[in-house]
């Protein structure tokens, strides 16, 4: 039988968009009695350029709008201020500053993609240790876990907020899905066409 750790991390994956890892971690932290300070969050203009470039890499403009056109970069900054707390503020800025140090914006498109690919792989490794230590089963479960732990890593927050900001924006929804705010019926479909877009309501 799988233990609770697997269950919780799996849930985070399964329902990704709805009940994502940062929210989950925040809840775990609260249970452990560690309540993070909210604080405020703003970016400098040069940091904003990096965030916009990374968002556009995640969701580039194709035949449909990209992240920038859908208003994702200012959305990310606003969400970090309003919905995330100090640990994520710190880890997010650290991530942006690391890209600044690596002169991310001066690189070629392909080199930027390579850097982000690496960042994603590193983050994945890092997240493994997060999930393991944070929700392990046992007495005082969550306590030792969070000590010294930083916020959710930059790339993870960046990716999540880019997808959330884009796929719930007007341009993102209209460019990506079949939007039916009032479907009017419920019908099962047994011969879905291979290029069927998701229905969004």
């Amino acid at each position, binding site marked *: *039988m*799988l233990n*609770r750790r*697997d*269950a*919780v991390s*799996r*849930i*985070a*994956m*399964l*329902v*990704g*968009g709805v*009940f*994502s*890892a940062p929210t989950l971690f925040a*809840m775990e932290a609260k*249970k452990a009695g560690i309540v993070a300070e*909210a604080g405020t969050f703003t970016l400098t203009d040069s940091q904003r350029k990096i965030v916009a470039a990374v968002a556009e*890499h*995640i*969701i*580039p403009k*194709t035949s449909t709008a990209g992240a920038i056109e859908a208003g994702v970069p200012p959305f990310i900054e*606003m*969400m970090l201020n*309003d*919905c*995330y*707390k100090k640990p994520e503020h710190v880890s997010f800025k650290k991530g942006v500053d690391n890209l600044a140090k690596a002169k991310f914006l001066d690189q070629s498109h392909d080199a930027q993609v390579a850097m982000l690919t690496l960042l*994603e792989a590193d983050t994945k490794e890092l997240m493994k240790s997060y999930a393991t230590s944070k929700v392990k089963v046992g007495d005082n479960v969550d306590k030792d876990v969070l000590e010294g732990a930083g916020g959710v890593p930059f790339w993870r927050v960046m*990716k*999540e907020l880019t*997808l959330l*900001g884009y*796929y*719930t*924006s*007007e341009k993102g*929804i209209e460019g*990506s899905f079949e939007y*039916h*705010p*009032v*479907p*009017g*019926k*419920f*019908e*099962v*479909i*047994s011969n*879905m066409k291979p290029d*069927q*877009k*998701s*229905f*969004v*309501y």
Partner: protein
Amino acid sequence: MNLNIDAIKSQTFDAIVIGSGISGGWAAKELTEKGLKVAVMERGREIKHIEGYETAMKNPWEFDHRGRPTNMAAEEYWAGMRTGYTPAEEHRYLFENDKQNPYIEKKGGFDWIRAYHTGGKSLLWGRQTYRWNREDFLANEKEGIGTPWPIGYDDLAPWYSYVEKFAGISGQAEGLDVLPDSDFLPAMQMTAPEVHFKNAVDKKLGRPVTVGRVAHLTKPGKQHTDLGRSSCNYRNKCMRGCPYGAYFSSLSATLPAAQRTNRLTMIHNAIVAEIIYDEKSQKAKGVRVIDQNTLEHKEYYAKIIFVNAGAIGSTSIMMNSKSNRYQNGLGNDSDQLGRNIMDHHLGVGASATVEGFEKDYMFGNRPNGLYIPRYRNWGKDKRGYTRGFGYQGGASREGWGRGVGQDGFGAQFKESLTHPGQWTVGFGGFGEILPDPNNRFTLSDQKDKWGLPILSFEANFGENEMKMRQDMMNDAAEMLEAAGFKNINAYNGQNTHIGLGIHEMGTARMGTSVKNSIVNKHNQVHEVKNVFMTDGAAMASASCVNPSLTYMAMTARAADFAVRELKKGNL
């Protein structure tokens, strides 16, 4: 009191109903339809059907934080945050701010989720609707747990049928003793993986699976359309309030029915501080209310009083109604007021991924799932605990959210997330909690901003619940496995509290005598015969099915009794 006669007249009704939620709405409807002039006291603000549902028709991008609670909301709605959904941006306006409405948690936690406005939690409920079975009413007596129910299934059955026809319940008749059928409107469809699951679980484990029974109009009748209600549009944005009146709520159904009699007076912002007891007649003569905004105190008078403020709210009003005769709370000779808090325990089950079914999909957002009725400790099955549990869940295809946990970014990644992902499936248990007199709340010495006592809770799961949870987790995994689903993940959340199910029950229980309970078999306070309690407070046990339908049936039955007694001159 030096009120003049006209003022007293304008504050006098045949009946007062405290609360406009799911049971209060029914009391208002039944009492007005039987000819009584009724005043409903609603402690919260007025919300008008349709125009009051301020977020109902908003597009996803019109929510600043795309649904997420802000840090400020998370802090202010601290109890709501434990549910993971009530403080979401789209429907937060219908829930109470916990910081402004504090309560005390002693030893263990208690999740008290409140909704103070017209219709109360009837606007926000899960709409899952199940009859209790025969055994549910017998178990307490057979097992010597709590107090025996003085009523049985047959007492409630005609009233179940009566309220179902009016409310409109969609579901599939199955002929099961464990989950008696309702009077159904057409059932909603199951998806292909759900049909596969149902067949596999039935064949391999002998457990029936049915589509959820839900208070949505799938085929409205005249009794529904006459009230302006129409068919479900499958948006699944119910908790924002339904502009189509497609699901049953006080606003869509019972209050409009009461209003058309011209005998209903709605009084909003009216917090009932206490029920006024008349020592001479040994009856209640009215209520004292506090205007939540002006803090003005006012009295209203009536021949009968229905207390429908939600289990905790109703009970706290009774506790706060002190007199010479009842120094410990109205009708509280048994000292049972506030005890035996029950709910359904949840946060335990299993999820999995489904291989195949690539060509299967669905159009519309079904506000419903599947239901697996109780099978434990039923028939020949005997476990190391008593009572049982049911499951709710279902299958769906992943949306763009799957991208958060997936590798990749860029044009191809972007395009891939515009198509439906793989099927996933999950089931969570709803377990029966036993009545325990030590699970209780009391009035503390601290006062809220209206000068009323702040409530203090002390409630914890017992051994029976903890044992049951093992089965709830393991059985869910077993059923997903029987269906051949992959990546099965079973979970048993340890940080849940009583109250998380938002099915509070039991704090003014029904029983066989004034010595063991607060109300008799007619939901009538044993020795204060013109006071009736017909919400979750009156429950002597919890069953494992969602409770609202039983409150509806009990309320209609009690209202019928009350009016007959009134006409006989007994009240």
